[in-house]
């Protein structure tokens, strides 16, 4: 993975925003905002993404601190799993009484 380019001069950095909609659930990625620093990023995210009771907690992460897999490497990264269905636990016979598995 190559290093991401630093933010454009004169532009505020981009922050990826993760919202937890209810206690007990995971934070989910919901979008991004531009902000000069972490405090303002949280406030911007509050105003942009939680106006309609969408969340109880916000995480903000500088977008250039996220390391992403290379889309061009998709073939060697993910395709080999295609023909290995035995990795799924779908070959067990479960009694009828067992739910939610």
């Amino acid at each position, binding site marked *: 993975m190559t290093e991401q380019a630093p933010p454009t001069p004169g532009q505020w950095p981009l922050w990826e925003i993760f919202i937890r909609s209810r206690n007990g659930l995971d934070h989910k990625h919901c979008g991004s905002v*531009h902000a000069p620093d972490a405090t303002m990023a949280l406030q*911007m995210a509050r105003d942009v993404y939680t106006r309609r009771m969408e969340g109880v907690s916000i995480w903000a992460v500088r977008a250039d601190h996220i390391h992403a897999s290379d889309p061009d490497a998709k073939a060697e990264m993910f395709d080999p799993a295609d023909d290995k269905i035995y990795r799924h636990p779908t070959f067990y016979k479960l009694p009828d009484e067992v739910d939610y598995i």
Partner: protein
Amino acid sequence: MKSTTSDGAAIAQVDYLLRIADSTLILGQRVSEWCGHGPILEEDIALANTALDMIGQARLLLGHVCKLDGRGRDEDQFAFLRAEGEFRNVTMVELPNYDFARTVLRNFLFCSFLLRLWQALSASRDAELAAIAAKSLKETRYHVRHAADWTLRLGDGTDESRLRMQTALDDLWPYTAELFAPSTEDDAAADSGFGVAWSSLQALWEAGVLPVLADATLRSPVPGAFLSRGKNGIHSEHLGRLLAEMQFLQRAYPGNTW
């Protein structure tokens, strides 16, 4: 408390509430002028949210005013059919936005005052006013935080942003005296347990405001003799133009709804 008679106590209470309701209404209208013009998309939304909160607070108070007034007027008539001289907002909130620095600094100065006011009014003997204050307090707390964060960043920022903040502070500061000017309506409201005297909130307000201004490396102006009188219905030349725009629809199409 009498709720439908037009006796002296009710009139004084209406006047007391109108000062707060009109101040939040007019500031909400001013802040809403940023809609579509914010410096960045995120801040545009933040300012629109703030404006809507302020107008929402005004609506709750005006709804209460209507009941105390007891003359069958509804909140729209108070907002859209009163003339300039009948508005009781403090002069500070009707001044033009001018620039982003002045907008956030005014929000900081005025919302810091509102914060103390809501805190005090949460203990009002009037249960409805206490409930309105408790609800509004949460919103205003956020407005203060947002405006304070901008005040710090712009004041302690670049030469340009610092100059704009200092200019805004020099221009707005004289209008803060009106917030704490003694008034007989205030004293009556405080005596009856309905409200609180605004002048009694000055020390608390300064305790919240001055450290932020100092952290923002801004120089607090010395108090002068100037005293604006918006809450007595004597306004600057800016309110008339604001009302002309805000009230246009109801005056051109009376009773229209959508």
